[in-house]
Protein backbone atom coordinates (compact mmCIF):
# COMPACT_ATOMS: atom_id res chain seq x y z
CA UNK A 1 0.00 0.00 0.00
CA UNK A 2 1.40 3.37 -1.00
CA UNK A 3 1.76 6.38 1.23
CA UNK A 4 -0.42 8.19 -1.31
CA UNK A 5 -3.36 5.82 -0.81
CA UNK A 6 -2.98 6.10 2.96
CA UNK A 7 -2.95 9.89 2.79
CA UNK A 8 -6.02 10.07 0.55
CA UNK A 9 -7.92 7.59 2.75
CA UNK A 10 -7.17 9.36 6.05
CA UNK A 11 -8.03 12.70 4.45
CA UNK A 12 -11.37 11.32 3.29
CA UNK A 13 -11.94 9.93 6.79
CA UNK A 14 -11.32 13.34 8.33
CA UNK A 15 -13.94 14.81 5.98
CA UNK A 16 -16.32 12.01 7.03
CA UNK A 17 -15.75 12.88 10.70
CA UNK A 18 -16.56 16.55 10.09
CA UNK A 19 -19.68 16.00 8.00
CA UNK A 20 -20.78 13.31 10.47
CA UNK A 21 -20.84 15.76 13.39
CA UNK A 22 -23.79 17.58 11.89
CA UNK A 23 -25.47 14.35 10.75
CA UNK A 24 -25.40 13.10 14.35
CA UNK A 25 -26.65 16.41 15.74
CA UNK A 26 -29.29 16.77 13.01
CA UNK A 27 -30.73 13.36 13.88
CA UNK A 28 -30.33 12.15 10.31
CA UNK A 29 -28.26 9.09 11.22
CA UNK A 30 -30.60 6.60 9.58
CA UNK A 31 -31.27 8.70 6.50
CA UNK A 32 -27.54 9.28 6.11
CA UNK A 33 -26.67 5.62 6.40
CA UNK A 34 -29.40 4.63 3.98
CA UNK A 35 -28.35 7.34 1.56
CA UNK A 36 -24.94 5.69 1.18
CA UNK A 37 -26.66 2.52 -0.12
CA UNK A 38 -27.96 4.37 -3.16
CA UNK A 39 -24.43 4.37 -4.59
CA UNK A 40 -24.67 0.66 -5.36
CA UNK A 41 -27.07 0.68 -8.32
CA UNK A 42 -25.06 3.58 -9.74
CA UNK A 43 -21.90 1.49 -9.55
CA UNK A 44 -23.72 -1.48 -11.09
CA UNK A 45 -24.97 0.57 -14.02
CA UNK A 46 -21.51 2.11 -14.53
CA UNK A 47 -19.88 -1.32 -14.55
CA UNK A 48 -22.40 -2.57 -17.09
CA UNK A 49 -21.65 0.45 -19.30
CA UNK A 50 -17.88 0.01 -18.84
CA UNK A 51 -17.33 3.36 -17.18
CA UNK A 52 -15.60 3.96 -13.83
CA UNK A 53 -18.01 2.90 -11.04
CA UNK A 54 -17.17 6.09 -9.16
CA UNK A 55 -19.05 8.17 -11.74
CA UNK A 56 -22.14 5.99 -11.46
CA UNK A 57 -21.98 6.20 -7.68
CA UNK A 58 -21.60 9.99 -7.75
CA UNK A 59 -24.57 10.45 -10.06
CA UNK A 60 -26.85 8.25 -7.93
CA UNK A 61 -25.68 9.84 -4.69
CA UNK A 62 -26.41 13.28 -6.09
CA UNK A 63 -29.99 12.26 -6.86
CA UNK A 64 -30.31 10.41 -3.55
CA UNK A 65 -29.37 13.58 -1.69
CA UNK A 66 -31.81 15.53 -3.83
CA UNK A 67 -34.55 13.06 -2.89
CA UNK A 68 -33.83 13.39 0.85
CA UNK A 69 -33.76 17.17 0.46
CA UNK A 70 -37.16 17.19 -1.26
CA UNK A 71 -38.65 14.86 1.35
CA UNK A 72 -37.21 16.76 4.32
CA UNK A 73 -39.66 19.57 3.64
CA UNK A 74 -42.51 17.23 4.53
CA UNK A 75 -43.14 15.46 7.78
CA UNK A 76 -40.28 13.52 9.30
CA UNK A 77 -42.13 10.21 9.65
CA UNK A 78 -43.01 10.11 5.97
CA UNK A 79 -39.40 10.94 5.14
CA UNK A 80 -38.03 8.06 7.17
CA UNK A 81 -40.48 5.62 5.64
CA UNK A 82 -39.74 6.69 2.08
CA UNK A 83 -35.99 6.84 2.70
CA UNK A 84 -36.09 3.35 4.18
CA UNK A 85 -38.03 1.92 1.28
CA UNK A 86 -36.22 3.69 -1.56
CA UNK A 87 -32.71 3.13 -0.31
CA UNK A 88 -33.18 -0.47 0.73
CA UNK A 89 -34.62 -1.06 -2.72
CA UNK A 90 -31.52 0.65 -4.16
CA UNK A 91 -29.35 -1.86 -2.32
CA UNK A 92 -31.37 -4.75 -3.77
CA UNK A 93 -31.37 -3.30 -7.26
CA UNK A 94 -27.63 -2.64 -7.09
CA UNK A 95 -26.97 -6.21 -5.98
CA UNK A 96 -28.86 -7.42 -9.04
CA UNK A 97 -26.85 -5.16 -11.38
CA UNK A 98 -23.42 -5.96 -10.01
CA UNK A 99 -22.22 -9.47 -9.28
CA UNK A 100 -19.38 -11.64 -8.00
CA UNK A 101 -16.08 -9.92 -7.26
CA UNK A 102 -17.38 -6.51 -8.34
CA UNK A 103 -20.32 -6.69 -5.95
CA UNK A 104 -18.15 -7.67 -3.01
CA UNK A 105 -15.76 -4.78 -3.71
CA UNK A 106 -18.61 -2.34 -4.07
CA UNK A 107 -20.18 -3.48 -0.81
CA UNK A 108 -17.08 -3.74 1.36
CA UNK A 109 -14.33 -1.78 -0.40
CA UNK A 110 -10.95 -3.06 -1.46
CA UNK A 111 -7.32 -2.34 -0.65
CA UNK A 112 -4.58 -1.48 -3.13
CA UNK A 113 -3.10 1.38 -5.09
CA UNK A 114 -5.27 4.21 -6.37
CA UNK A 115 -5.62 5.14 -10.02
CA UNK A 116 -4.66 8.70 -10.90
CA UNK A 117 -8.29 9.72 -11.35
CA UNK A 118 -9.25 8.23 -7.98
CA UNK A 119 -6.45 10.08 -6.21
CA UNK A 120 -7.36 13.42 -7.81
CA UNK A 121 -11.05 12.92 -7.00
CA UNK A 122 -10.10 12.01 -3.43
CA UNK A 123 -8.07 15.15 -2.87
CA UNK A 124 -10.53 17.55 -4.56
CA UNK A 125 -13.66 16.11 -2.91
CA UNK A 126 -12.00 16.01 0.51
CA UNK A 127 -10.99 19.64 0.18
CA UNK A 128 -14.53 20.58 -0.90
CA UNK A 129 -16.21 18.80 2.03
CA UNK A 130 -13.75 20.09 4.64
CA UNK A 131 -14.03 23.63 3.29
CA UNK A 132 -17.84 23.46 3.29
CA UNK A 133 -18.09 22.30 6.91
CA UNK A 134 -15.46 24.69 8.23
CA UNK A 135 -16.77 27.74 6.35
CA UNK A 136 -20.43 27.01 7.00
CA UNK A 137 -20.23 25.61 10.52
CA UNK A 138 -21.72 28.76 12.05
CA UNK A 139 -24.68 28.67 9.68
CA UNK A 140 -25.13 24.95 10.36
CA UNK A 141 -25.08 25.53 14.14
CA UNK A 142 -27.77 28.20 14.02
CA UNK A 143 -29.97 26.14 11.67
CA UNK A 144 -29.47 23.19 14.01
CA UNK A 145 -30.72 25.11 17.06
CA UNK A 146 -33.71 26.59 15.26
CA UNK A 147 -34.53 26.86 11.59
CA UNK A 148 -36.85 29.79 12.27
CA UNK A 149 -34.10 31.69 14.10
CA UNK A 150 -31.75 30.91 11.23
CA UNK A 151 -34.22 32.41 8.77
CA UNK A 152 -34.52 35.64 10.73
CA UNK A 153 -30.69 35.76 10.89
CA UNK A 154 -30.68 35.87 7.09
CA UNK A 155 -29.68 32.25 6.45
CA UNK A 156 -31.16 30.53 3.40
CA UNK A 157 -32.03 27.37 5.31
CA UNK A 158 -33.19 25.30 2.35
CA UNK A 159 -30.08 26.10 0.35
CA UNK A 160 -27.94 25.20 3.38
CA UNK A 161 -29.81 21.87 3.69
CA UNK A 162 -29.19 21.14 0.03
CA UNK A 163 -25.48 21.92 0.21
CA UNK A 164 -25.12 19.87 3.38
CA UNK A 165 -26.82 16.81 1.87
CA UNK A 166 -24.74 17.04 -1.30
CA UNK A 167 -21.58 17.37 0.79
CA UNK A 168 -22.74 14.28 2.69
CA UNK A 169 -23.26 12.42 -0.61
CA UNK A 170 -19.82 13.49 -1.81
CA UNK A 171 -18.31 12.20 1.43
CA UNK A 172 -19.96 8.81 0.87
CA UNK A 173 -18.43 8.72 -2.62
CA UNK A 174 -15.04 9.49 -1.09
CA UNK A 175 -15.09 6.41 1.09
CA UNK A 176 -16.56 3.90 -1.37
CA UNK A 177 -13.15 2.69 -2.48
CA UNK A 178 -12.02 1.74 1.05
CA UNK A 179 -15.21 1.03 2.93
CA UNK A 180 -17.76 0.24 0.28
CA UNK A 181 -21.44 1.04 0.12
CA UNK A 182 -22.41 -0.86 3.27
CA UNK A 183 -19.86 0.62 5.63
CA UNK A 184 -19.14 4.20 4.53
CA UNK A 185 -22.20 5.45 6.38
CA UNK A 186 -20.68 3.97 9.55
CA UNK A 187 -17.44 5.94 9.17
CA UNK A 188 -19.46 9.11 8.88
CA UNK A 189 -21.67 8.34 11.87
CA UNK A 190 -19.62 6.39 14.44
CA UNK A 191 -16.60 8.70 15.00
CA UNK A 192 -18.94 11.69 15.16
CA UNK A 193 -21.18 9.90 17.67
CA UNK A 194 -18.10 9.10 19.78
CA UNK A 195 -16.88 12.70 19.52
CA UNK A 196 -20.29 13.95 20.62
CA UNK A 197 -20.03 11.93 23.82
CA UNK A 198 -16.51 13.19 24.54
CA UNK A 199 -17.00 16.88 23.80
CA UNK A 200 -18.47 19.87 25.56
CA UNK A 201 -18.18 22.37 22.73
CA UNK A 202 -18.35 22.44 18.94
CA UNK A 203 -14.63 22.87 18.21
CA UNK A 204 -13.70 19.91 20.40
CA UNK A 205 -16.34 17.79 18.72
CA UNK A 206 -15.16 18.64 15.19
CA UNK A 207 -11.50 18.03 16.04
CA UNK A 208 -12.27 14.78 17.90
CA UNK A 209 -14.47 13.39 15.12
CA UNK A 210 -11.81 14.21 12.54
CA UNK A 211 -9.07 12.59 14.61
CA UNK A 212 -11.09 9.49 15.49
CA UNK A 213 -12.14 8.85 11.89
CA UNK A 214 -8.65 9.45 10.46
CA UNK A 215 -7.04 7.39 13.24
CA UNK A 216 -9.37 4.43 12.76
CA UNK A 217 -8.83 4.56 9.00
CA UNK A 218 -5.03 4.77 9.24
CA UNK A 219 -4.85 1.95 11.77
CA UNK A 220 -7.43 -0.08 9.85
CA UNK A 221 -5.48 0.15 6.63
CA UNK A 222 -2.24 -0.94 8.27
CA UNK A 223 -4.03 -3.88 9.91
CA UNK A 224 -5.79 -4.79 6.66
CA UNK A 225 -2.45 -5.17 4.91
CA UNK A 226 -1.10 -7.23 7.75
CA UNK A 227 -4.21 -9.43 8.02
CA UNK A 228 -4.74 -9.54 4.22
CA UNK A 229 -8.39 -8.57 4.57
CA UNK A 230 -10.57 -5.76 3.16
CA UNK A 231 -9.90 -2.54 5.10
CA UNK A 232 -13.54 -1.41 5.39
CA UNK A 233 -14.79 -3.87 8.02
CA UNK A 234 -11.62 -3.44 10.10
CA UNK A 235 -11.94 0.37 10.09
CA UNK A 236 -15.57 0.21 11.15
CA UNK A 237 -14.88 -2.37 13.88
CA UNK A 238 -12.12 -0.16 15.32
CA UNK A 239 -14.47 2.86 15.30
CA UNK A 240 -17.21 0.85 16.97
CA UNK A 241 -14.85 -0.49 19.65
CA UNK A 242 -13.78 3.09 20.50
CA UNK A 243 -17.42 4.15 20.66
CA UNK A 244 -18.32 1.28 23.00
CA UNK A 245 -15.27 2.07 25.14
CA UNK A 246 -16.47 5.66 25.61
CA UNK A 247 -19.91 4.46 26.65
CA UNK A 248 -18.26 2.31 29.33
CA UNK A 249 -16.08 5.16 30.51
CA UNK A 250 -18.83 7.71 30.85
CA UNK A 251 -22.44 6.73 31.44
CA UNK A 252 -24.87 8.31 29.01
Amino acid sequence: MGAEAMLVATGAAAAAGLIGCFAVMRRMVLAGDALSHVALPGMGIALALHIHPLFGALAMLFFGALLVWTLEDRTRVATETVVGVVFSAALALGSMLASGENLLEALLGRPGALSGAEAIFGVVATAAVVAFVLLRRHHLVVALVSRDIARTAGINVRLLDFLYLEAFALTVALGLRYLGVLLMGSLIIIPAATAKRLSSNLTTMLVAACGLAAGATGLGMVLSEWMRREPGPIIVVISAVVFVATTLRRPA
Partner: protein
Amino acid sequence: MHTRRGGALPPFTVPNILDVADLSVAFADASVLSHLSFSVRTGASVVVIGPNGAGKTVLFRALVGAIPFTGEVRWAEGTRIGYVPQKLDIERDVPITGRDFLKARTVIGRGPASDISGALDVVGLSDAASRRPIGALSGGQFQRLLIAFALLGHPTVLLLDEPTAGVDGPGEERLNEMLHRVQRERGLTMMTISHELTIVHAYASDVLCLGSGEAHFGPPTMLTPDLLRDVYGAPIALHDHGR
Protein backbone atom coordinates in the same frame (compact mmCIF):
# COMPACT_ATOMS: atom_id res chain seq x y z
CA MET B 1 -54.08 51.84 15.69
CA HIS B 2 -57.03 49.82 14.56
CA THR B 3 -58.00 46.53 13.06
CA ARG B 4 -58.85 46.22 9.45
CA ARG B 5 -60.48 43.39 7.66
CA GLY B 6 -59.87 42.66 4.03
CA GLY B 7 -59.21 45.17 1.30
CA ALA B 8 -55.93 46.57 0.05
CA LEU B 9 -53.49 48.31 2.35
CA PRO B 10 -53.51 52.10 2.33
CA PRO B 11 -50.30 53.80 1.16
CA PHE B 12 -47.45 53.03 3.54
CA THR B 13 -47.32 55.35 6.52
CA VAL B 14 -44.05 55.90 8.34
CA PRO B 15 -45.03 55.29 11.95
CA ASN B 16 -46.02 51.65 11.31
CA ILE B 17 -43.30 49.04 11.47
CA LEU B 18 -45.70 46.28 10.47
CA ASP B 19 -48.85 46.13 8.41
CA VAL B 20 -50.73 42.87 8.19
CA ALA B 21 -53.67 42.64 5.82
CA ASP B 22 -56.04 39.76 5.28
CA LEU B 23 -53.50 37.22 6.57
CA SER B 24 -54.69 33.60 6.43
CA VAL B 25 -52.81 30.40 7.22
CA ALA B 26 -54.15 26.89 6.70
CA PHE B 27 -52.54 23.52 7.35
CA ALA B 28 -53.95 20.53 5.46
CA ASP B 29 -57.25 22.33 4.87
CA ALA B 30 -57.62 23.29 8.55
CA SER B 31 -57.70 27.05 8.85
CA VAL B 32 -55.50 28.37 11.68
CA LEU B 33 -55.58 32.09 10.97
CA SER B 34 -58.30 33.64 8.89
CA HIS B 35 -58.31 37.13 7.33
CA LEU B 36 -56.29 38.77 10.09
CA SER B 37 -55.51 42.46 9.71
CA PHE B 38 -53.68 44.80 12.09
CA SER B 39 -50.90 47.36 12.16
CA VAL B 40 -48.10 47.86 14.68
CA ARG B 41 -46.63 51.29 15.40
CA THR B 42 -42.87 51.61 15.64
CA GLY B 43 -41.89 51.33 19.28
CA ALA B 44 -45.13 49.64 20.36
CA SER B 45 -45.25 46.76 22.81
CA VAL B 46 -47.84 44.34 21.51
CA VAL B 47 -48.88 41.37 23.62
CA VAL B 48 -50.53 38.53 21.72
CA ILE B 49 -52.96 36.50 23.81
CA GLY B 50 -55.44 33.75 23.13
CA PRO B 51 -56.19 30.16 24.06
CA ASN B 52 -54.07 27.21 22.95
CA GLY B 53 -54.50 26.52 19.27
CA ALA B 54 -55.56 30.08 18.49
CA GLY B 55 -52.63 30.43 16.10
CA LYS B 56 -50.32 32.72 18.09
CA THR B 57 -47.12 30.88 17.18
CA VAL B 58 -48.39 30.33 13.65
CA LEU B 59 -48.84 34.11 13.35
CA PHE B 60 -45.20 34.71 14.36
CA ARG B 61 -43.94 32.05 12.00
CA ALA B 62 -45.89 33.68 9.17
CA LEU B 63 -44.50 37.10 10.16
CA VAL B 64 -40.92 35.81 9.85
CA GLY B 65 -41.71 34.05 6.57
CA ALA B 66 -41.23 30.51 7.90
CA ILE B 67 -44.58 29.21 6.67
CA PRO B 68 -46.71 29.89 3.61
CA PHE B 69 -49.67 32.24 4.00
CA THR B 70 -52.09 34.25 1.94
CA GLY B 71 -52.65 37.97 2.39
CA GLU B 72 -50.01 40.56 3.06
CA VAL B 73 -47.31 40.99 5.69
CA ARG B 74 -45.39 44.20 5.19
CA TRP B 75 -42.49 45.16 7.42
CA ALA B 76 -41.15 48.71 7.22
CA GLU B 77 -38.00 49.04 5.17
CA GLY B 78 -34.86 48.36 7.16
CA THR B 79 -36.66 46.25 9.76
CA ARG B 80 -34.44 43.65 11.38
CA ILE B 81 -36.28 40.92 13.26
CA GLY B 82 -34.99 39.25 16.40
CA TYR B 83 -37.03 36.11 16.93
CA VAL B 84 -37.16 34.08 20.14
CA PRO B 85 -39.23 30.98 19.35
CA GLN B 86 -40.77 28.79 22.01
CA LYS B 87 -39.85 25.50 20.48
CA LEU B 88 -36.37 24.65 19.25
CA ASP B 89 -35.27 21.99 16.81
CA ILE B 90 -32.19 20.89 18.72
CA GLU B 91 -31.74 18.04 21.18
CA ARG B 92 -30.46 19.04 24.57
CA ASP B 93 -27.44 16.70 24.60
CA VAL B 94 -25.40 18.28 21.81
CA PRO B 95 -21.96 19.70 22.62
CA ILE B 96 -22.80 23.22 21.49
CA THR B 97 -22.18 25.94 24.04
CA GLY B 98 -24.01 29.22 24.38
CA ARG B 99 -20.85 30.87 23.14
CA ASP B 100 -20.72 28.63 20.02
CA PHE B 101 -24.26 29.77 19.29
CA LEU B 102 -23.60 33.48 19.90
CA LYS B 103 -20.33 33.42 18.00
CA ALA B 104 -22.18 31.94 15.03
CA ARG B 105 -24.45 35.00 15.07
CA THR B 106 -21.59 37.48 15.05
CA VAL B 107 -19.81 35.62 12.24
CA ILE B 108 -22.96 35.46 10.12
CA GLY B 109 -23.69 39.16 10.73
CA ARG B 110 -20.00 40.03 10.24
CA GLY B 111 -20.01 41.73 13.63
CA PRO B 112 -17.07 41.78 16.01
CA ALA B 113 -16.80 38.90 18.52
CA SER B 114 -16.55 41.56 21.24
CA ASP B 115 -20.31 42.15 20.78
CA ILE B 116 -20.89 38.87 22.59
CA SER B 117 -19.87 40.03 26.06
CA GLY B 118 -21.98 43.15 25.59
CA ALA B 119 -25.04 41.08 24.72
CA LEU B 120 -24.42 38.74 27.67
CA ASP B 121 -24.24 41.78 30.00
CA VAL B 122 -27.51 43.18 28.67
CA VAL B 123 -29.44 39.94 29.23
CA GLY B 124 -27.67 39.15 32.52
CA LEU B 125 -26.11 35.83 31.53
CA SER B 126 -22.72 35.07 33.07
CA ASP B 127 -19.64 34.31 31.01
CA ALA B 128 -19.32 30.94 32.78
CA ALA B 129 -22.90 29.98 31.89
CA SER B 130 -22.30 30.92 28.25
CA ARG B 131 -19.44 28.43 28.08
CA ARG B 132 -21.61 25.50 29.15
CA PRO B 133 -23.41 23.25 26.63
CA ILE B 134 -26.81 24.77 25.95
CA GLY B 135 -28.54 21.66 27.28
CA ALA B 136 -27.00 22.32 30.70
CA LEU B 137 -28.61 25.76 31.04
CA SER B 138 -31.68 26.39 33.17
CA GLY B 139 -34.90 27.51 31.51
CA GLY B 140 -34.25 31.15 32.41
CA GLN B 141 -30.60 31.08 31.32
CA PHE B 142 -31.60 29.50 28.04
CA GLN B 143 -34.19 32.20 27.35
CA ARG B 144 -31.56 34.85 28.11
CA LEU B 145 -29.22 33.16 25.66
CA LEU B 146 -31.85 33.25 22.92
CA ILE B 147 -32.55 36.91 23.65
CA ALA B 148 -28.80 37.68 23.55
CA PHE B 149 -28.65 35.93 20.16
CA ALA B 150 -31.55 38.04 18.91
CA LEU B 151 -29.90 41.26 20.17
CA LEU B 152 -26.63 40.43 18.37
CA GLY B 153 -28.48 40.91 15.08
CA HIS B 154 -29.16 44.58 16.08
CA PRO B 155 -32.91 44.08 15.67
CA THR B 156 -35.47 46.85 15.34
CA VAL B 157 -38.25 44.50 16.41
CA LEU B 158 -38.31 41.56 18.82
CA LEU B 159 -40.78 38.70 18.39
CA LEU B 160 -40.93 36.74 21.64
CA ASP B 161 -42.92 33.52 21.83
CA GLU B 162 -43.67 32.93 25.50
CA PRO B 163 -40.24 34.13 26.65
CA THR B 164 -40.97 33.23 30.27
CA ALA B 165 -42.29 29.71 29.69
CA GLY B 166 -40.41 27.31 31.95
CA VAL B 167 -39.13 30.10 34.20
CA ASP B 168 -40.16 30.30 37.86
CA GLY B 169 -42.10 33.23 39.37
CA PRO B 170 -39.33 35.64 40.47
CA GLY B 171 -37.22 34.69 37.45
CA GLU B 172 -40.15 35.48 35.22
CA GLU B 173 -40.48 38.96 36.67
CA ARG B 174 -36.75 39.65 36.24
CA LEU B 175 -36.88 38.42 32.67
CA ASN B 176 -39.85 40.66 31.85
CA GLU B 177 -38.15 43.65 33.46
CA MET B 178 -34.97 42.99 31.52
CA LEU B 179 -36.85 42.72 28.24
CA HIS B 180 -38.69 45.98 28.74
CA ARG B 181 -35.53 47.77 29.87
CA VAL B 182 -33.87 46.64 26.63
CA GLN B 183 -36.91 47.75 24.67
CA ARG B 184 -36.83 51.23 26.25
CA GLU B 185 -33.08 51.66 25.90
CA ARG B 186 -32.95 50.59 22.28
CA GLY B 187 -36.30 51.95 21.16
CA LEU B 188 -37.38 48.50 19.95
CA THR B 189 -40.78 47.40 18.83
CA MET B 190 -41.80 44.29 20.71
CA MET B 191 -44.39 41.61 20.08
CA THR B 192 -44.79 39.05 22.85
CA ILE B 193 -46.93 35.94 22.96
CA SER B 194 -48.01 35.29 26.50
CA HIS B 195 -50.33 33.18 28.57
CA GLU B 196 -49.93 35.64 31.44
CA LEU B 197 -52.71 38.14 31.12
CA THR B 198 -51.06 40.12 33.92
CA ILE B 199 -48.21 41.27 31.69
CA VAL B 200 -50.73 42.87 29.38
CA HIS B 201 -51.50 45.60 31.89
CA ALA B 202 -47.91 45.84 33.09
CA TYR B 203 -46.19 46.21 29.73
CA ALA B 204 -48.48 46.27 26.71
CA SER B 205 -49.31 49.32 24.65
CA ASP B 206 -51.52 47.16 22.46
CA VAL B 207 -53.11 43.73 22.64
CA LEU B 208 -53.80 41.30 19.85
CA CYS B 209 -56.37 38.81 20.97
CA LEU B 210 -56.67 35.66 18.88
CA GLY B 211 -59.46 33.17 19.42
CA SER B 212 -61.88 30.92 17.68
CA GLY B 213 -63.97 33.86 16.55
CA GLU B 214 -62.93 37.26 15.31
CA ALA B 215 -59.52 38.62 16.30
CA HIS B 216 -59.34 41.83 18.32
CA PHE B 217 -56.60 44.44 18.29
CA GLY B 218 -56.52 47.50 20.51
CA PRO B 219 -55.33 49.05 23.76
CA PRO B 220 -55.32 46.88 26.91
CA THR B 221 -58.45 48.66 28.10
CA MET B 222 -60.35 46.83 25.38
CA LEU B 223 -60.05 43.59 27.38
CA THR B 224 -63.39 43.41 29.09
CA PRO B 225 -64.52 40.23 30.86
CA ASP B 226 -67.09 39.74 28.11
CA LEU B 227 -64.44 39.93 25.40
CA LEU B 228 -62.16 37.51 27.23
CA ARG B 229 -64.98 35.04 27.72
CA ASP B 230 -65.72 35.33 24.02
CA VAL B 231 -62.06 34.71 23.08
CA TYR B 232 -61.21 31.97 25.57
CA GLY B 233 -64.62 30.34 25.55
CA ALA B 234 -64.71 30.46 29.38
CA PRO B 235 -64.76 33.20 32.01
CA ILE B 236 -61.23 34.57 32.56
CA ALA B 237 -60.22 37.04 35.24
CA LEU B 238 -57.70 39.64 34.17
CA HIS B 239 -55.85 40.96 37.20
CA ASP B 240 -54.20 44.31 37.01
CA HIS B 241 -50.85 43.88 38.73
CA GLY B 242 -49.16 46.78 37.06
CA ARG B 243 -49.44 50.48 36.82
